[in-house]
């Protein structure tokens, strides 16, 4: 399937939900949708176009908002990336696990790394950060810096 055919089928399947659609390289399509519609968009992609495979979900700290990219893939065409923007003041997004159960680890990773709140996640426990990880520390936010705690040698000099 060529990129043009895929672009057309995406436009037919999603209609007005697409805010922006680009095709910067062969077999790569980036489309932007509203964050409230992410679950319905992925359902439409799954049911109408048969795109069932989510490679991963990338998060990005873009200043006053988070950008989340759902990297979907299919054998017939290649790679479709669905982008949503989430304002930092209200970092909520609906879980896509009802549509794509394989996305669960990627969503849990987003919660740990960016402090997003994924609503409706069947298992919202931390996945990556350690059990004693201090609350409110989200490592992949740009304003987060690692500070090595002062080394204390037992019995050493004070």
């Amino acid at each position, binding site marked *: 399937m060529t990129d043009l055919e895929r672009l057309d089928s995406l436009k037919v399947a999603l209609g007005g939900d697409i805010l922006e659609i680009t095709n910067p390289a062969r077999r790569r399509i980036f489309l932007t949708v509203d964050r409230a519609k992410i679950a319905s968009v992925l359902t439409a992609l799954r049911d109408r176009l048969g795109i069932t495979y989510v490679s991963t979900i*990338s*998060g990005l700290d873009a200043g006053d908002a988070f950008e989340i990219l759902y990297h979907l893939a299919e054998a017939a065409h290649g790679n479709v*990336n669905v982008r949503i923007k989430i304002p930092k003041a209200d970092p909520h997004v609906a879980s896509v696990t009802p549509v794509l159960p394989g996305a669960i680890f990627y969503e849990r990773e987003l919660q*740990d790394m960016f402090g997003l709140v994924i609503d409706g996640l069947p298992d919202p426990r931390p996945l990556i*950060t350690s059990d004693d990880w201090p609350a409110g520390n989200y490592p*992949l936010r740009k304003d987060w810096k690692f500070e090595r705690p002062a080394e204390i040698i037992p019995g050493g000099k004070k």
Partner: protein
Amino acid sequence: MKFNIPIGPQHPALKEPISLRMTVEGEVIRDADLRLGYNHRGMEKLAEEKNWTQNIYLVERICGICSHSHATCYVQGVEKLMEIEPPKRGLYIRYLVSELERVHSHLLWLGVAGHEAGFDSFFMYTWRDREVVMDLLEMISGNRVHYAMNTLGGVRRDLDEIQIKKILDGLVVLRQRTEYYFKIGASEPTFVGRLAGVGYLSKEKAIALCACGPTARASGITADVRKDDPQAVYDEVPFDVCTADSCDVLGRTVVRIKELMESYKICEFLLRNLPAGDIAVKAPKKAKPNEVVSRYEAPRGENIHYIRSNGTERPERLKVRAPTLANYPATIEMLKNGFIADIPLIFAAIDPCICCAERTVELVNARSGEETVVRFGDLRKLAGERFAKSPVKRNAVWPF
């Protein structure tokens, strides 16, 4: 009566130390719960502080077995960001090393599968033959593990005629040995019987849980990034995607043996058609603001890097997803309704790291809270005993 068995975090039959909590009824696993992050190295954060060139060597260190996969995935993405086109010869050498890496990784896996199934001579044969390809990789790159072949705009070392001859000779040996392994499967009913039906993952589940690589292909899904989304040279190279439809560890074994044969074919094609010319072009220091999704078929499955540049020497964001993470949800599904004794085999079947497999499992009795520590070797012995008592699966056949 249900028991909880914690496996890990210091029990990895897996690449990273991970914690699995099994709920078992008798010897049957009813549920498995996963906790990651014990080996989290913060590489994505670190990558934002390193420049484009330094990051090649950083991502190469994500994995010790498919090191070339991550470096290649990263490099092919950054080359797109920098808008440079590596010379053909450089690309052929880059993907030649990719295929040789796949050969060494699959041979390693076959040995592990044999070992976990209690077929240790198979393990010793495959690991001895793996030395052939390890020596070839050392000859090409100077290294056995982190080849450091990639650079932005091509590769760092060229091949000469003598080396090409040596690689072709090595491939002849490897091909003969792989054909022999295929025959062993067909003529060794205990091996086939041990693998058949273990770790069942239906096609529907594999699709729903987004499994990738040989795990998905053994469940009848024809998904291979080299075919679906051919990077650089793969649309010029003739090869087939190998699948199996038995959906179990036997299928995963067959898929990997068949893939070995395909990899030899690809290597020979690349060597026989190696174009003349340069191996690398000069890369700029900075990349314009842009983004790229780079996909690569690593030995374990699809490897995907999302790279965003911001016009400086450093990436704005580098997101890495290795295939093992994609296969975890499927592994939980495979473990369900399996036996405790099959845990090593099922774990091994998604091809995690095994050099650290000799660890302990704690068996906790849910009623008394009494803990017994069992060595991984004993667990394997337990597996052997269970299998010895079970009826031979006479209907299990090696799929030709």
